[in-house]
């Protein structure tokens, strides 16, 4: 693929109780005493009117919220649902929920927890919310691997399997969390950075 044909047209970073979009601090939650509370406050701030959010595990809530912020700034309306791909990654897979589910097994196993014992469920939640039906993948690595995310998204965009790809890093374990999502599109947007592994890494570290 000619990398110049794809651009990072938006990005959302959520860490340390702050939400950034395209490098700008959108919201800072000083009041939340836990990740759960922060996510609920973020839902009220950026979304609402989606009761299923409350049933999700923290990984899904974080990914859903990051996608919500990202897509409000960089909507995927110009793309067919089948042409929007998702490529996500993290360190702990669904371990945060796996532990909770394991604890519930000692009594009566919780079906509502069980359905979140795979990390790629967050992709499904984002797709349901926005109607995406494209290709998707979820990788588990010790750290954010910009080269891998770039290679996978570039393959999808370059092969014509997708015209847009939401990709990035989505980590939750206990109270530690971090979301960095990028919207990559095969269209030129004024001021957008070219889609390269270096630019993914620079945004991640910003």
């Amino acid at each position, binding site marked *: 693929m000619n990398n110049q044909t794809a651009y990072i047209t938006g990005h959302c970073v959520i860490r340390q109780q702050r939400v950034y979009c395209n490098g700008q601090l959108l919201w800072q939650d000083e009041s939340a005493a836990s990740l759960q509370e922060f996510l609920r406050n973020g839902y009220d701030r950026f979304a609402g009117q989606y*009761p299923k959010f*409350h*049933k999700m595990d923290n990984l899904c809530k974080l990914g859903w919220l990051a996608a919500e912020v990202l897509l409000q700034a960089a909507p995927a309306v110009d793309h067919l649902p089948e042409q929007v791909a998702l490529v996500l990654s993290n360190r702990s897979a669904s371990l945060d929920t796996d532990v909770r589910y394991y604890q519930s097994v000692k*009594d*009566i196993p*919780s*079906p*509502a927890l069980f*359905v979140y014992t795979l990390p790629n469920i967050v992709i499904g939640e984002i797709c349901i919310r926005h109607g995406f039906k494209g290709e998707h993948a979820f990788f588990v690595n010790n750290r954010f691997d910009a080269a891998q995310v770039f290679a996978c998204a570039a393959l999808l965009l370059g092969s014509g399997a997708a015209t847009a790809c939401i990709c990035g890093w989505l980590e939750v374990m206990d109270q530690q969390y971090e979301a960095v999502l990028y919207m990559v599109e095969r269209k030129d947007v004024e001021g957008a950075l070219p889609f390269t592994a270096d630019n993914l890494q620079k945004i991640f570290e910003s």
Partner: protein
Amino acid sequence: MEKLMADLKAQIVAQLNLQEVKPEDIGDDQPLFKEGLGLDSIDALELIVLLQQHYHIRIANPEQGPEIFYSVRSMAEFITAHQKQ
């Protein structure tokens, strides 16, 4: 029956984590699934767990599910009938 239905509504809201629904918002005869409260298949499994945890009732015949879980009233009637056995 009224007390049992009120208890069930509170238990359903808690068990299914329906944070934007108040127990009193649920009608006695309101369908719990589809066009009613909009519960899904995972919620159905949670309702089965609810019956086990709170009322020590195991559903022997899964085909009874749609009838038992049609509404809060049908659940209460099932629990009452079971407790009389």
